[in-house]
């Protein structure tokens, strides 16, 4: 996934054409893929289990852009990482060598506005809501001890889209998500007093369409 995306970005940049964004269609449907690195708000929780509090998400979606300004975006992504079950005490984190795999699958709907400061660079802001599925499994678990829940959250982001080609854009943005209701009631997140599954992520999007 990573290598495919990088290759696409390189190709897009290499074939960069003059600005061709002036003639925005009234409605543009634009699929995209993205990769992001999220710094989780629940720093101690993720650090205890995975040894770090940041990790990549990969996903994709589709944008509907109206007159080149307003847009609605649907996206889905996925985080999956294996760490170790852990214990936190007195600020110390102890990893216990028992594999644990966590999966987060966000489905997000956002709406936003694209600014027209430059024909090749379109800053944008957006906000929306998401539905976040969270799964957690561990070695030695009984099935009843696995976690598979879904909870709503909200998201805001802002960044800029760079037109690399008439049909290809590259977006870079910062996104903040807040996902309550999944962490904080048990596990190391309860020990750490952390309740938010969200965080701040830096995203890189490859957009196909005008």
């Amino acid at each position: 996934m990573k290598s495919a995306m990088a290759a696409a970005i390189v190709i897009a940049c290499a074939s960069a054409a003059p600005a061709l964004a002036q003639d925005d269609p009234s409605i543009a449907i634009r699929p995209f893929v993205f990769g992001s690195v999220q710094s989780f708000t629940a720093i101690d929780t993720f650090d205890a289990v995975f040894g770090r509090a940041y990790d990549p998400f990969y996903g994709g979606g589709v944008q509907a852009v109206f007159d080149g300004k307003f847009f609605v975006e649907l996206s889905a992504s996925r985080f999956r990482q294996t760490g170790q079950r852990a214990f936190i005490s007195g600020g110390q984190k102890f990893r216990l060598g028992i594999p644990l795999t966590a999966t987060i699958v966000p489905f997000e709907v956002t709406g936003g506005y694209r600014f027209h400061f430059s024909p090749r660079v379109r800053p944008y802001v957006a906000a929306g809501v998401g539905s976040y599925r969270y799964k957690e499994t561990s070695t030695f678990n009984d099935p009843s001890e696995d976690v598979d829940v879904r909870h709503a959250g909200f998201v805001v982001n802002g960044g800029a889209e760079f037109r690399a080609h008439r049909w290809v854009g590259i977006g870079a943005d910062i996104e903040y998500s807040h996902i309550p209701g999944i962490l904080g009631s048990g596990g190391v997140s309860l020990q750490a007093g952390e309740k938010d599954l969200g965080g701040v992520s830096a995203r890189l999007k490859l957009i196909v369409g005008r």
Partner: protein
Amino acid sequence: MVRFRGRTAAAAAVVAAALVLTVKGQTPAPSLHIENIGLSAVEENTAIWSEARPGGRVDALKRAARETAARNSRVGASGRSYTPGRVIVRFHDEVPAAERRTVARLASDTADIAARPSYADFDIVRIDVNEDAEAVAAALAARPQVVYAQPAYHMHATMVPNDPNYATLQWNLPLVDLERAWDIQPAGASTVTVAVLDTGMAYRSLTITVNIPGFRNAGINYPALGPSVVPYAAAPQLVGVNGANASRIVAPFDIISNGVVPPLDFEGHGTHVSGTIGQLTNDNIGEAGVAFNVKLMPVKVLASFWDVIFGNAPFEGGSDDDVARGIRYAADNGAKVINMSLGSSGPPDCATNPNRDGCSPTIEAAVRYAVGKGAFVVVAGGNEFEDVDPDFGPNPTSILAEIASRINGAVSVAAVDPQKNRAFYSSTGSYIELAAPGGTSRGFGRGGFIFQQTFDFTFTDTFDPTVVPPSQYRAPRFDVLANIGIIGTSMATPHVSGIAAMLVQQGITDPAAIEDALEKSAVDIGTPGRDNSFGFGLVDARNALRGLGLSR
């Protein structure tokens, strides 16, 4: 064979206000003569239990060290863990090798077919370790050339020891969910040393020659036996048959004699306690132990009746200075867990008046020292619930347990019966922090006792008229070992010590964190929340070792 002893139930040996024996007559002989020659123990298969007593080698079971396990394991979307980098595939027989390789490559760019392993009708397809083996297996299974494909899911032994008395007598180990804890940690704390501060331990086979003087006990005059040979054997279930596992004994020391004599157990209490912590397991003999591969450090701080008669100690029991020195010795010699199945009654306010009469600041300082050196200290909660102390009233405070409750990294342990009720003798108070199986003599018959291998007291307690008629008084034998049932918080304590040792091996090494983990993973019983009977609840080995996930 059913035998009961006559003394009242009291599991924790007395420390400060030591029980002084009525020893009259000749001055005890100054010391033992010990030869390093001894016959193997006589092992009895009988189970003997008593409310009166104070206080296998594993055949390459499972070896995965925890870090290695984590590295070599991946949890699939199915929830099962598997070995990354390989997929098991059964091709239809008629599919040629070249086509098999092509099919594998269609499922994964990195796939390659390894040489077929012996005793297999399937192939192993090797893939990149970072690939999702379940996804590759699913892709392969969808091909018409393939009968089935699956990741190499992990199997683990569900550890149910084959020790014969485990299934019939040891209700106590399943009660704290040890079977599933052993699945998590099959190594049984093999790298951790637990110090047992007690009456000593039957860890060596010796021949002892001693002058046994006359004495008076229970109103009876016992005659002098003069120079006598006392056979002494190591407990095979601690050190193996013929001492095959003797290397697990670390830095044994007799505090009372300051190392002049080895810390031999002339009572049976310390050997029994040691058995609960680490009796050899899965060897088809006797009982199981909690952390069955643990290293044991016998530190003798309590003298027994025979120690007094043999001239090893001035009185039965121990004293604060002996216990404090024992704690420091254990900490200085590498013990990561210190088991103290001992105690003494005292005033309830030593926390605020540590220098008042009856308090033990010497021991408190030693416990703090040990915790500071990285040793986790486990103390019996006391057996005095039904007692009325002339100085401290009913259900008196157990001094050592009270000290432990004030130190992060030390815990006090109450006792429960097979139905998780508070054992009738188990002291209660704000100082109780955890509960563990201590057994009971009320209502469960022999099924209420805690069984481990130790001396058959009918061969050792020849001074006790309720065990051996005075007319048959003879020199004791310490070479006959049986499966003995005892009750008390002395028996509850080593359960916690064994689990703590497993926690250390699992990666929680800080004493305060061990206490935190044990308390947070305990199963709350009795009044919801912490209470004075069970503390934070019944210790749960599996919960403790398993730790926590992100959200559960």
